[in-house]
């Protein structure tokens, strides 16, 4: 775009504004301290901690089975994947062989979670740029996934389906059919998303070239998930450190090189297609077998340190367990994707307008409980 410099003969004054903690665009209780000159953002400083529950401290007093349930409350939109991360870490530490059936089911539900999370993001993203109808379309399809979860896990949001050693229950008899029905349904509905929002001229103008993040910066800021991949940074944990059944499936890592908000948007939309393809590859081949292996009622991890990364809906979730051989972790750290992604908000928003800040924040897909663990 052509830019012209206009000499500013008027004295302008920077002023300070509080965006949040109760603000529609901050998706929860994030508080942004903005320094603004007219409409132009000079500085964004996030102020966190409004819903900090100190999950890491709570983990230090809880048993490993209990910790799984706390992780639901971090990034509640990818609760299954969070559970999986802790379970995988514990299982690897105990060197338990997990049945193939468990791995496949975990992957299918994990990918369904990702689609559910992305549909919600898509709806909210549209709302943030002013297209209110997207919200309802996104939620319509997410409901169907939640229904599937409800039938199998008994919960819609905080599922607690994983336990160290496998799954809480076997899948519901209807599960396979319903997932297939959903995939067939969503394949017709996902193009609708593009029709409504992606192709819209205003939307394109709002997103293109806004909030640019270069690949170097993305790596330096620890961006992960769609934020990193939008900048051409191949950071899909599912590709580089495959876990569960993800090494058995073929899928393309969604990558864009532009690094702007539109690229991050496109990555997420493509990811929904890829997740559907992963589910399709697995849904017909769920192996027979046990849905869990028995573990001791009190799990004691050997002395040592264990790290497990998984690809949550928002990016790389890391679980770092330091064990001293007792039934509680000595220290447990969650490397949450949202936390690192939020740290680059100032970098991409400065110099833009207030509307740009909202648009780029929407493409970072921030879930505040994930940041305020």
């Amino acid at each position, binding site marked *: 775009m052509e830019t012209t410099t206009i000499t500013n003969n008027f004295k302008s004054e920077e002023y300070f504004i509080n965006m949040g903690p109760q603000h529609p665009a901050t998706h929860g209780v994030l508080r942004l301290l903005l320094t603004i000159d007219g409409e132009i953002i000079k500085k964004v400083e996030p102020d966190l*901690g409004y819903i900090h529950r100190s999950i890491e401290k709570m983990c230090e007093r809880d048993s490993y089975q209990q910790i799984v349930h706390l992780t639901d409350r971090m990034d509640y939109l990818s609760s299954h994947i969070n559970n999986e991360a802790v379970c995988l870490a514990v299982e690897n530490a105990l060197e338990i062989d997990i049945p193939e059936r468990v791995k496949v089911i975990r992957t299918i539900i994990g990918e369904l979670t990702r689609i559910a999370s992305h549909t919600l993001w898509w709806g909210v993203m549209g709302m943030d740029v002013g297209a209110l109808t997207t919200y309802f379309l996104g939620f319509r399809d997410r409901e169907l996934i939640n229904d599937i979860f409800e039938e199998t896990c008994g919960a819609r949001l905080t599922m607690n389906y994983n336990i160290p050693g496998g799954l809480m229950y076997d899948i519901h008899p209807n599960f396979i059919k319903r997932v297939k029905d959903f995939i067939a349904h969503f394949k017709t509905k996902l193009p609708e998303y593009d029709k409504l929002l992606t192709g819209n001229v205003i939307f394109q103008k709002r997103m293109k070239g806004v909030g640019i993040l270069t690949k170097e910066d993305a790596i330096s800021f620890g961006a992960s998930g769609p934020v990193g991949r939008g900048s051409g940074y191949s950071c899909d944990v599912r590709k580089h450190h495959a876990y569960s059944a993800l090494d058995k499936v073929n899928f393309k890592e969604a990558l864009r090189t532009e690094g702007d908000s539109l690229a991050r948007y496109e990555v997420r939309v493509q990811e929904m297609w890829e997740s559907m393809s992963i589910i399709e590859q697995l849904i017909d081949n769920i192996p027979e077998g046990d849905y869990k292996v028995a573990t001791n009622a009190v799990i004691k991890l050997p002395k040592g*340190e264990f790290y497990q990364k998984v690809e949550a809906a928002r990016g790389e979730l890391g679980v770092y367990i330091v064990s001293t051989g007792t039934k509680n972790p000595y220290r447990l750290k969650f490397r949450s994707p949202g*936390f690192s992604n939020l740290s680059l908000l100032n970098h991409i928003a400065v110099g833009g307008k207030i509307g740009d800040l909202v648009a780029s924040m929407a493409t970072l897909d921030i879930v505040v409980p994930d940041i305020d663990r």
Partner: protein
Amino acid sequence: MTNEALQKLISSWIPELEFTEEGSQFLNIIVQPEQLHQLMTQLKSNNETSFDYLFCLSGIDWGKELGVVYHLESTIHRHMVVVKVQTEDRENPTFDTVSNIWATAEFHEREAFDFFGIIFNNHPNLKRLFLTEDWDGFPLRKDYVDEINMVIK
């Protein structure tokens, strides 16, 4: 690069480093606080190591010592390494910041400061991140006591 090759290369830079793979899936480097920044700069800038991705920075209270654990990955070579640093000074535990090497460290170090009271030299904006400015103590330390809010079983 394999862990052995990494160990050989890195120990050639700073001989005093300790290496261990015991009880961890990564190569662990234990470094003295004075050499932390030098080591980190080299880990990032050296073409053979090029650890450009700091994916986790955790503060840990070891009981007697306070420490920081850096998990590093190279997006080019795809190898990983863990760097550990600790100090026995519990009043003023101080390390050099790595936020000028990896931008993500700025927030992670603020988190470590908030919960462990670890001070990072030269940090651009070292202040409480989650807790309020007037919060007393550092909650994730093992000796932190809060009789009202903490439920001990």
